């Protein structure tokens, strides 16, 4: 049977673990969002930043330039014409970066999955997604929940180990 200290050491260095907690805390509490809207969901995203729901409470502020953003919220239908641009935007963001796929359209094509000849069926075909928020469009509460899920994910990240 392992003692408490052993467990700590197998999980990683104490110093590293504490520093890690601090750094993760910093990252998760200041997720600046790329001010970028695509379609209907963008309106709900704006509503989330506005007075009633107030994204700013969680430290999320919109940044116009991808260079200063931490999360990109894919808010709406991704078309084939737009997909390459989104990929470029994603590449322009500095690491560490996160993606929330907001709404059915960017999750899987949504109502346009069958006959949408010009719709990309899911943004995850182009860039990796961290959190999927379902809904058409998701309510602001749902987006907030998505953000909290993302914060949970960031909290469990590690400097030394690759996270699952």
């Amino acid at each position: 049977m392992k003692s408490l200290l052993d467990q700590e050491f197998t999980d990683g260095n104490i110093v590293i673990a504490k520093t890690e907690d601090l750094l993760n805390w910093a990252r998760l509490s200041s997720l600046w969002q790329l001010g970028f809207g695509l379609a209907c969901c963008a309106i709900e995203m704006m509503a989330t930043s506005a007075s009633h729901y107030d994204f700013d409470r969680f430290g999320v502020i919109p940044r116009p330039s991808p260079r200063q953003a931490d999360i990109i919220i894919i808010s709406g239908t991704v078309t084939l014409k737009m997909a390459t641009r989104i990929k470029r935007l994603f590449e322009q963001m500095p690491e560490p970066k996160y993606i929330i796929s907001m709404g059915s359209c960017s999750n899987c094509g949504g109502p346009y999955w069958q006959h949408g000849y010009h719709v990309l069926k899911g943004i995850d075909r182009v860039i990796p997604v961290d959190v999927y928020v379902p809904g058409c469009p998701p309510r602001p509460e749902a987006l907030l929940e998505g953000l909290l899920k993302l914060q949970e994910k960031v909290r469990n990240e590690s400097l030394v180990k690759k996270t699952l």
Partner: protein
Amino acid sequence: MKTREEIFNILKQEFPQDVLEFQNIPTEPIITVNPLAIHRVCLFLRETAGLEFDTLMCLSGVDDANGEKTNDPDGSVTIKGGTLSVYYHLHSMKLDHKVTLRVSTPREDPEAESVESIWKCADWHEREAYDMIGIIFLHHPDLRRILMPYDWDAGYPLRKDYKNPEFYQGMKVPY
């Protein structure tokens, strides 16, 4: 204010060759015009006193799908022959009357005159009809694709026999 039948009669008098027929469908009577004369007809409609159609409400390209249909083994349809049409909905704000014109062009060689120089808003409408249906508007200043990507080479999506490509720039298109 004039009824559509009166407008047809005026047009028939002016252009006996080019104004082809009047279909009195109860929901929307339609005047069929020769596609290569549509510019002249429209100019007449705008400039003549008593008609004065100053706005083009809508311009829509339609695939009539009235040709010979063959079913392909993969479930899709190929259409040969028949026509593609363009519908013009005109309206006069001054006199408050409306008219619907139609031109039909052969599917294999879909060419119609552009009315862009008469009503500026036809510019984008015609580009859209070109983009979606594939109708070529002669004398249009800038006939490019408008909604689809400029390098889209899989055809005109609103044709009834359109087949979606498997990939576009490495992205899978079907679900």
